[in-house]
């Protein structure tokens, strides 16, 4: 299968501090790729470079190439890139002044969609894909913030999916959720890869083992090893990887 996203010697800085160095990595289409590593290894920074969110931080900088279907995303308008590569954040951030419906429709409205029927259909489909439809179908006009933590996160997923991105980036999406909510989202990720390419950052190795075909291990800003998840966990090539997986440091 073709590489959906390809990064080429990508490095990123926060001001003078180099956060990630020379990352060359492929993310396959219609598959789930996980990025794991200890706190501070740069995995969040990496994923934020993929949809050009890193540069929204003052004094932040990126070097190297990131290609989406062969196109350099830094040559395209940032707004376009972010629509094609969606993101879900660690803490769910629905718009509290908007209803559930309006939250999901927000991205579509930004792009000029006004037709009520098309919006209804898109909202329905996105909420179904996010496995939230059954729970909210009778209360679409309630505030986005009135849901539970897990539901809010699925709402954010629906909101991101509504603009039909090609890739969905997930930055530790279950970090703030309980095991039941986490399981629901992991099931949903499994279904999503039919239509989307998913990249998930997680500090939970078992989660990576559960959902991802490919896993990349990062440490102190460097890419240490990447490979099929099974192989990485059972027969890691680098000693550093093995130390992390066996829990020698965390």
């Amino acid at each position: 299968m073709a590489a959906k996203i390809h990064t080429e010697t990508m490095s990123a800085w926060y001001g003078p501090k180099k956060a990630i160095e020379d990352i060359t990595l492929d993310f396959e289409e219609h598959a789930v790729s996980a990025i794991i590593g200890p706190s501070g290894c740069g995995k969040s920074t990496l994923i934020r470079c993929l949809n050009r969110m890193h540069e929204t931080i003052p004094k932040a900088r990126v070097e190297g190439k990131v290609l989406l279907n062969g196109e350099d995303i830094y040559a395209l308008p940032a707004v376009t890139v972010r629509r094609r590569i969606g993101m879900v954040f660690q803490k769910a951030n629905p718009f509290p002044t908007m209803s559930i419906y309006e939250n999901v429709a927000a991205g579509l409205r930004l792009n000029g969609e006004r037709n009520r029927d098309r919006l209804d259909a898109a909202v329905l489909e996105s909420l179904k894909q996010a496995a939230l439809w059954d729970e909210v179908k009778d209360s679409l006009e309630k505030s986005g913030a009135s849901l539970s933590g897990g539901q809010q996160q699925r709402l954010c997923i629906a909101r991101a999916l509504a603009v039909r991105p090609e890739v969905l980036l997930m930055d530790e999406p279950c970090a703030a959720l309980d095991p039941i909510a986490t399981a629901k989202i992991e099931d949903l990720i499994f279904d999503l890869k039919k239509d989307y390419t998913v990249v998930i950052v997680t500090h939970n190795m078992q989660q990576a083992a559960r959902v991802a075909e490919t896993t990349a291990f990062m440490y102190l800003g460097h890419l240490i090893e990447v490979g099929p998840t099974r192989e990485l966990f059972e027969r890691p090539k680098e000693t550093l990887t093995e130390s992390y997986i066996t829990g020698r440091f965390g």
Partner: protein
Amino acid sequence: MFQWFSTAVAFGVIGLLVLITVILALAAEQSIRTFGLGFLTGNVWNPVPPLAFGAVPFVYGTLVTSALALLFGVPISLGIAIFLSELSPPWLRVPLTYVVELLAAVPSVVYGLWGIFVLGPVMRVSVEPVIQNIFGSLPIFQGNPIGTDKFTAGVILAIMIIPTISAVSREALLAVPDNQREAALSLGATRWETTRLAVLRYARAGIFGAIILGLGRAVGETMAVTMTIGNRNAISISLFDQGQTIASWIANNFLNATDPLELSALIELGLVLMLMSLVINIFARLMLGRVLRRGEGAA
């Protein structure tokens, strides 16, 4: 013991507030007794017998000039707040904030002086004739523009309330958590769309409170208005006509009051003004209180 002392002082300050209310009520009592509620509906001010005093023309003038102040002041204040909170390069933020605050440091009487000798002539020669040329068919723009009128007073008031509204709005915008902006940006929103969608909506209670606070300031402003509004006791539709506000009327007539009833009526006017200002400010505080509380809860 020190606690007792400072508590006593604090209560004393509240006692001062009580004293203010009592003294003003006492002084206005004659007028209140004489005119009753008719004071608020009467529109004559007759200092010679038969004595008749009504507040309507002044309330009208206050409302008109305050409305003008909000009309011009609010968009500019919001623009400033958005610029300083969302758009400005970091090195420009602090000095620019400081400079906008400087607008608030200028005494009202100096604004009035500038209004008489700088803004007024500009209004009379350049601005008002142009407006009359284009919109002269509308009754609010008719009359003879001489530069000293409700319009000029409204513009000066707008300038004076900009620091208040923009500073409080800016606080409200800064209180919006970054994750809201990130959510909008990650959907592919432009900077302005992010501000509109995620920031302004979230902060709308605070912005509304800021506007009400600005209104409260405009209503009580005296000197700059007195010096630029023309002080003619008449209700007229045209913005280019002279007028008066509660504050300007008191300022101009207090020392000229010959009959004690007129003095009492002027003081009653002052009470009306105080009440207006009070209600407006309590309303503003309610709006802002909700914002402050929600900010703490969401964190």
